[in-house]
């Protein structure tokens, strides 16, 4: 009788760009390298994407054809992995390994999927694996009300894809490396800070600021800590997938993408304070963005810090992200039974620094 395979017979692994002598024919020695291949399976959320998609096609007809023709040309595939953030950023955990592997853009890897064994079962000759060549994009911080903080690893394809390839002969080593500590999930609530830093508050150049945001600039008079005034409702702030530009060479048989312009967006819903208030977070947020039509839309950086308790003071050597925006539309939100709020849409202004470290 045929037996269906049940969960969790899948494992996801990451191999360094130089892990294989011939990536189309990985050997057992190479796939079990403990220094070049990493088991990230426990960190990856279940809604990952790592698969081939429909190939591009050619619809050329021969004169004898009497119906439509669609002939596959080059292979397409897509990759997108979300991983849990560790509550302890210093822990030697799978969660932190996942984050460190995919924290910077433009790093080449091979993503490997094995279906048929649990993730930590030793590799053996003949195991079927699928290999997807990728380059990292800017990562995305995924947060939400009552949700775990996740690190969204985004990728561009390199055109290197082979599915269900058998692992070749070789001497097994101890890899893929799997950290002994999985990690501790971290909930979004209470671990997000957002500051508004007007461009006039930047003491150095804007490029210097996005490479290493200055604590002094973020805390200077004129900068505003918006955190307390922001509602979860409609929260949207951060990097999104960069433009993916098809960029094949004549040798490429699969989909090859080059990273185009980085993309980011911002839209924040603020609580509205009562009119008699002339101090406090609600008042400050309203005062900052209320003049949306007088021709002087505020221009500045929204700086976010994710994963550190909001009560922790900003300090140098903390990881933050900075996005340059111009505050655009101001929209009242008075409907429903909840409190009165206002929404501000922010238009991107071409500069961002993702997961950069603060300086004094």
């Amino acid at each position, binding site marked *: 009788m045929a037996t269906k395979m049940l969960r969790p017979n899948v494992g996801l692994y990451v191999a360094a760009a130089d892990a294989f002598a011939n990536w189309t024919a990985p050997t057992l020695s190479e796939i079990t390298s403990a220094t070049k291949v990493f088991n990230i399976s426990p960190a990856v959320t279940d809604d990952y994407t790592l698969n081939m998609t429909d190939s591009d096609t050619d619809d050329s007809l021969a004169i004898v054809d009497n119906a439509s023709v669609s002939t596959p040309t080059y292979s397409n595939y897509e990759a997108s992995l979300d991983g849990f953030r560790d509550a302890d950023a210093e822990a030697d955990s799978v969660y932190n390994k996942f984050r460190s592997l995919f924290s910077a853009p433009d790093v080449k890897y091979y993503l490997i999927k094995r279906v048929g064994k649990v993730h930590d079962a030793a590799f053996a000759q003949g195991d079927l694996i699928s290999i997807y060549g990728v380059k990292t994009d800017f990562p995305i911080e995924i947060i939400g009300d009552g949700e775990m903080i996740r690190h969204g690893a985004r990728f561009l394809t390199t055109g290197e894809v082979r599915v269900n390839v058998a692992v070749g002969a070789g001497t097994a080593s101890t890899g893929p490396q799997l950290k002994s500590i999985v990690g501790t999930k971290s909930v979004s609530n209470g671990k997000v800070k957002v500051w508004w830093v*007007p*461009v*006039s*508050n*930047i*003491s150095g150049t804007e490029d210097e600021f996005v490479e290493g945001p200055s604590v002094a*600039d973020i805390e*200077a*008079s*004129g900068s*505003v800590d918006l955190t307390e005034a922001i509602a979860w409702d409609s929260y949207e702030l951060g990097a999104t997938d960069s433009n993916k530009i098809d960029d094949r060479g004549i040798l490429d048989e699969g989909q090859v993408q080059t990273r185009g312009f980085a993309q980011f967006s911002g839209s924040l819903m603020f609580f509205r304070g009562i009119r008699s208030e002339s*101090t406090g977070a609600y008042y*400050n947020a309203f*005062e*900052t963005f*209320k*003049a949306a039509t*007088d*021709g*002087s839309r*505020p*221009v500045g950086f929204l700086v976010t810090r994710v994963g550190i308790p909001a009560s922790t003071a900003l300090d140098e050597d903390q990881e933050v992200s900075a996005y340059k925006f111009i505050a655009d539309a101001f929209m009242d939100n008075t409907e429903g039974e909840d409190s009165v709020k206002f929404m501000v849409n922010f238009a991107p202004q071409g500069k961002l620094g993702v997961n950069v470290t603060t300086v004094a």
Partner: protein
Amino acid sequence: MALAINLRTGKTVSVPDHYIGHEVLGKDLAPFDGAEVKAAPKKEKKKKSAEYIPAAVDADGDGLVQEGTEWERPVETEIEEQPAPNNIEENEE
């Protein structure tokens, strides 16, 4: 809309009127008066090696001759040349 200067960073920016003097948003902002802008002082570019021309002509009609040199002077004015010092010691004394 007002033009303001951030007194901490020295950067000029256009801000909503209510930012100026605002307890939170405008402590470091001061109204920026464009008239206060002073052009950077021009560097003097004098040709130290120029020779004194007693009968220099005011070709551009601005009332000065040998402009940009150590001999720059009003038209019809002469400068009595001083002999160069014979040695360093004499000059220092």
